[in-house]
């Protein structure tokens, strides 16, 4: 899964880079032809948007796991054992030594 998202990310990044390069080239073409700049051609815009979309998808997919957004879900796994056991107040004169021998 991680390698697939990495490949998608690379494709998206290439798209982004290529659209930027085309935009620069388009501008220099306009300068040579002595035409006024109005807007970028539609294919460059689409390529740029597609590239950023692919990058977003890849980054979101590539992340390991989503965590529950509820505040309580982190405390779900807490057990009574952990809450009742207070390590700083531990005492040792109990049945533990008799049970383990």
């Amino acid at each position, binding site marked *: 899964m991680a390698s697939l998202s990495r490949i998608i990310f690379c494709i998206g990044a290439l798209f982004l880079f290529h659209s930027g390069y085309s935009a620069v080239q388009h501008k220099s073409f306009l300068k040579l032809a002595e035409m006024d700049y109005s807007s970028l051609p539609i294919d460059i815009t689409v390529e740029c948007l597609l590239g950023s979309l692919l990058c977003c998808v890849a980054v979101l997919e590539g992340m390991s796991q989503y965590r529950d957004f509820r505040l*309580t879900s982190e*405390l779900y796994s807490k057990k009574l054992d952990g809450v009742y056991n207070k*390590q*700083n*107040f*531990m005492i*040792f004169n109990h049945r*533990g*030594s008799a049970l383990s021998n």
Partner: protein
Amino acid sequence: MASIEEVHVSDDAEFTDWKTARDTLRDIRETERRDSRVVVALGKILIDKYSNKLGDEVWTVHEQLVMAALDIGDTRRAESSFGCLKKRFSNSKRVKKLEGLIMEGKEDFDEALEYYEGILKDDPTNTIISKRIVAIHKARGDTALAITKLTEILEITMADYESWSELAGLYISQHQYDKAAFCLEELILSNPHNYIFHQRYAEVCYTQNTTESLEIARKHYATSLKLKPSNLRSLYGLYQTGVSLGKHLKKKEAKVRNDDIAQWCMSQLLETYQENCNMEQLKVLENFLKPPSK
């Protein structure tokens, strides 16, 4: 809705490989469980055979091992691990505490008390050491003195939720439920999203067994269930509270309402156990839950 949680089995201390053992010890540290036998069984092998692989974690394991070994009465193991720590960190406060713990483990309480008071003279705000003094009084069975000492600590560090929790436990052991309830309220304030605090508070209120306290108990059992729906202990608590309130209250409407709550809890409990129990066991449970006939 609810499901029976996996019961944690603490006696499976079989050593498979050092990585799993290390991860088990880490998990025990993080969840603050008291699986001392497991810790000693795994920690021993880790320290004896794989201490070079653990890196810096070896010191944490040593510390964990000292406390766990004392907990099961293996003083020799505790001393050997303590020796390693003492050599490495001669001036550390945490290691000093361990030295006191070993005295406590040998039940030399007077010596330990003297030792702790010596540390406190140089460093009066060291709460960990003050907590050990409370623990010594508790170990000697002098709960009243332990409570006095603990309230002194809490006057200085009011946000210390471990101490509040301990104080609540001490009050409960003395049957002073009003005071215990106050401590548990502090705990709820410190983290209102923890279902265990609500459940524990509700349990104390239920034990007080007056109409008002039962109503408070019902509220907090319900909150605990809302925060964690698969919480059978709260579900059973709510059932018991509903039954008791049904008996306590005089008004007919209030009676019916509480009986409804008890009925609902009973159906939820039965539904939960249906998945994992056979018919006979279910029947026993049903008879157990049935409110006594009037």
